[in-house]
């Protein structure tokens, strides 16, 4: 997830002049970096390795298609596409983390981390909603 969000954010910083879009992109880089660091620290503590799964592979494939499409856009078209994409992405991830990951995790520390991550991503989803409304469609 960190890879998807980070790449999209760097694309936005390269292609957008809109202060709202740039602020959101910078926030995605710093917040997801913090969540990713916490997740890696916990995995190290639990002596576990991150593994690809069907969900993460599907997310990455969808993201690659979006990056190819968005890289050809500019100005308001790009901003609208980025904002809509971030909203959809966070909605999807939050649904899966809250509905499937958290209920099925047994380790207390991992469950707690996922809960904190979910509250972070939910705040991002709300932020993305405002960004979509501000930029228009």
């Amino acid at each position, binding site marked *: 997830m960190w890879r998807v969000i980070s790449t999209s954010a760097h694309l936005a910083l390269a292609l957008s002049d809109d202060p709202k879009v740039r602020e959101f992109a910078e926030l995605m880089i710093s*917040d997801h970096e913090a969540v990713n660091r*916490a997740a890696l620290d916990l995995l190290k503590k639990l002596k576990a390795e991150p593994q690809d799964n069907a969900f993460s592979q599907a997310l990455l494939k969808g993201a690659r298609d979006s990056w190819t499409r968005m890289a050809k856009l500019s100005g308001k078209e790009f901003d609208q596409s980025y904002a809509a994409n971030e909203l959809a992405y966070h909605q999807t991830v939050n649904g899966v983390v809250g509905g499937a990951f958290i209920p099925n995790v047994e380790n207390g520390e991992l469950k707690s981390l996922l809960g904190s991550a979910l509250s*972070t991503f939910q705040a991002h989803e709300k*932020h993305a909603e405002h960004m979509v409304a501000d930029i228009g469609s």
Partner: protein
Amino acid sequence: MTSSASRAGSLRCSRRSFFVACSLAPLARPALAEQATIEILQFAFAPTEAEVAVGATVTFTNLDLVPHTATGKGFDTGSLNKGESRVITFSEAGDFPYLCAFHRHMKGRILVR
């Protein structure tokens, strides 16, 4: 009889004391806190509002995974990573609304009296 009259007198007296105490109660303000702690958790400041005395110190502690700030007129904790705290001294009376500079929907307020 004497005993009941005395008891009635005593009751009247305690009722009067009760009403006097009740009417004066709003005038007797509890002392304002000289220290307060604000926790940042799940993208919210808790408590959202704090009332403190002039010269009080307020400790902001971030318990979230991501960095936050408490930024208001004349004060700024700077970026606080998870587990970090910053102490701010409020040396003037006033109303100090603040927010997180990174997540601007997160808002709080310090009332200094």
